[in-house]
C-alpha cells in the first residue's frame, strides 16, 4: 500500500516552526522534519514524545555497573583471592574505578547501539534521502496522508502562508522514505 506524502521546503527556521504550529492546530501529524541543524523547540512544536533513549542509557549503565561489581567480587573474594597489601578479599573501595568505567562504557555503547538500531543506521547503508535541500540550507517538512482530513490544497495554503519556497506531493511506497537517485540530487 502506498500513501500520499506532502512535502514543503522553507528558507527560515522560524517559518518552519510557525507552519508546524498552524498545521498541528489544523489536525495534521508529521512524518518528520529535515533540517540542516537541530532547531530548538521543533520536537515540542511537532508534538514528538520525549525520547526513550535516556532509559536505555540508564538501564545499560546499571547493568554494566552491577556486572562490574559482581564480577570483581566473584573474582577477588570467591574464585581467586589474592592478598593485596593486607586488605580484605572483598575490598569494595578498590572496585569502584572499574565499576565506574564499565558503567560509563556500557551506558555509552548501549545508547549508541540502541540509537543505530532504532533508526536503522547500519554503517554502509544507503540513507533514504527525502530532500537534498535539508542537507544544505532548507528546512523540509514531510506530512503523510494519515486520515480523511488530509487535504493537499489546505496544506499548500497553510505552508505558503508561512513563505514555503516549494511544495510538492508524491507517493510514498510502503511507508518507506523515497530514495532519490543520484542523478536527481543536484536538481533539488
Amino acid at each position, binding site marked *: 500500500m502506498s500513501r500520499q506524502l506532502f512535502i514543503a521546503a522553507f528558507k527560515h527556521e522560524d517559518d518552519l516552526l510557525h507552519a508546524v504550529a498552524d498545521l498541528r492546530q489544523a489536525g495534521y501529524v508529521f512524518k518528520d522534519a529535515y533540517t540542516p541543524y537541530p532547531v*530548538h*523547540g521543533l520536537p515540542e512544536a511537532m508534538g514528538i514524545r520525549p525520547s526513550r533513549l*535516556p532509559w536505555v542509557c*540508564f538501564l545499560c549503565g546499571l547493568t554494566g555497573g552491577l556486572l562490574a561489581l559482581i564480577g570483581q567480587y566473584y573474582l577477588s573474594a570467591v574464585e581467586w583471592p589474592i592478598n593485596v*597489601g593486607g586488605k580484605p578479599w572483598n575490598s569494595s*573501595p*578498590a572496585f*569502584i*574505578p572499574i565499576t565506574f568505567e564499565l558503567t560509563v562504557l556500557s551506558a555509552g555503547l548501549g545508547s549508541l547501539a540502541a540509537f543505530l538500531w532504532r533508526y536503522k543506521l547500519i554503517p554502509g547503508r544507503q540513507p533514504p534521502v527525502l530532500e537534498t535541500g535539508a542537507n544544505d540550507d532548507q528546512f523540509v517538512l514531510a506530512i503523510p496522508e494519515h486520515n480523511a482530513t488530509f487535504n493537499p490544497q489546505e496544506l499548500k495554503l497553510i505552508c505558503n502562508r508561512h513563505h514555503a519556497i516549494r511544495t510538492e506531493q508524491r507517493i510514498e511506497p510502503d511507508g518507506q522514505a523515497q530514495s532519490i537517485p543520484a542523478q536527481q540530487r543536484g536538481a533539488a
Partner: protein
Amino acid sequence: MTTLQLPTFAPRPGLLTRLRLLIALGVIGTLVGLIFAPKTTLGGLLLGACYNLGMGLGAMVIIALSYITKAGWSTALRRIPESMAATLPLTCLIILIVLAAGFHQLYPWFNSHEHGHVDPSLALWRKPAFFLARAAGCMIIWLLFTHAILRNSRKQDQSGDVRLTHRNVGLSGVFLMVLALTLSLATFDWFMSLQPHWISTMLGVYHFAGLFQASIAAMIVITILLQRAGFLQQIVKPAHLHDLGKYLFCFTTFWGYIWYSQYMLIWYSNIPEETSYFILRHNGPWLAVAYVSVALNWAIPFFGLLSSTTKRNDRLLFKLAVLVLIGHWIDLYSIIVPSMAGPSTMIDLWSVLPSLILLPIFILGMLRALRGSPLMPARDPMLVESLHHH
C-alpha cells in the same frame, strides 16, 4: 533593543525581622558557648563563616565561568551570584577576626613544643603573624577580583559598553587561576592544620568541589524563591532551570568523584599520617555524619537529578538544592568539628549555634545587594540571548 521592564527586588518585611531575631538568638548562644566551650564554639564560628565564604567564592566562580565561556543562558540570572559574592567583604572580615581571636584555641600546633628542634622554615610558617598575613593575603586577592568584576558589571548597567564584558572575561580567567592556588592555601591553613599531623593534598580541591556545588544549589534556591515571589517571572523559563539543574548535577558528580578520589588514595596507601583523618571520622558516631554527608551531597542529588523531568520541575529541583545546601554544611561540619570535639561526640551544640548568626548575616547581606541593583544586567550584550533561551 526593546524597552525592557526592569524588575527590582524588595523582600517581605517579616523576613528581615525573623532573620534579625535568629541573629539575636545565635549571638546569645555563641556568647554562652564562648564562656563554657570556647574551643568548639570557635570551631562553629569558623564553620559558619567558611560556609558563607564558600557561597561567596562559589558565586564568583559561577560568574567567572559564565564570562570566560561567554555563556548566554545565565546572563539574566547573573545578579543572583553577584549578590551572593557581594557578601564576601564582611565574611572575610569575620573569618579574619575568628582566626585572630581563636587560633591558639583552634590550632593545636600553636602551643606545641613536642619537638626539641624545629625547622626554621616551619617555625616561620607557624608564626601567628605569618598565619594571619597569609589569610589576609588570600582575602585581599579574592576581594580585589570580586570588587573589579562586580563594579564592571554595574557600570555596564549605565553605559552598556561591550568593553566592560571583555575586561571581565580577562579578569575572570586570572581570578580562576589565582583562586585555585589561594583557596588551596587557605584550606590547608584553616582546615588541614586543625589536625596538624594529617596530610592530604586533595583537601583544597575537595573544599572547592563542595563550596561550588553548594553555591550552585544556593543560586537555584534563590532563583526559584524570587520567581515564586513574583520577580523574574517572565524571565526564568524551564530551560533556565534545566540548565541550572544540569550545572548542579555536574558538580554533584564532581563532588562525589573528588570525595572518592581523596578517600581511595588514603585507603589504598594506608599510611598513618594520612589515615588519621578517616579513622576519626569513619568510626563511632562520626560514621553516621559521614554517611549523611555522602547521601546529601552525592547519592540523593545524583540519582534525583538524572532525569530531565526533575531538572525542569521547580518544586523537585528546589528540594534537591536545599538538601545539597544542608549537605554542604554537614560536610564542613565533618571536616572541622571532629578535630576539636573528639571521637565520641556526634552533635556538638556549641559548634552549631554560631551558624544561627552567620547564615542570617549572609542572607541579609545578599538581600541588601539584591535590593541595591536592578535584578537583571539590563545592558549586557548577552542578555538578549539569555532571555530567548529555550
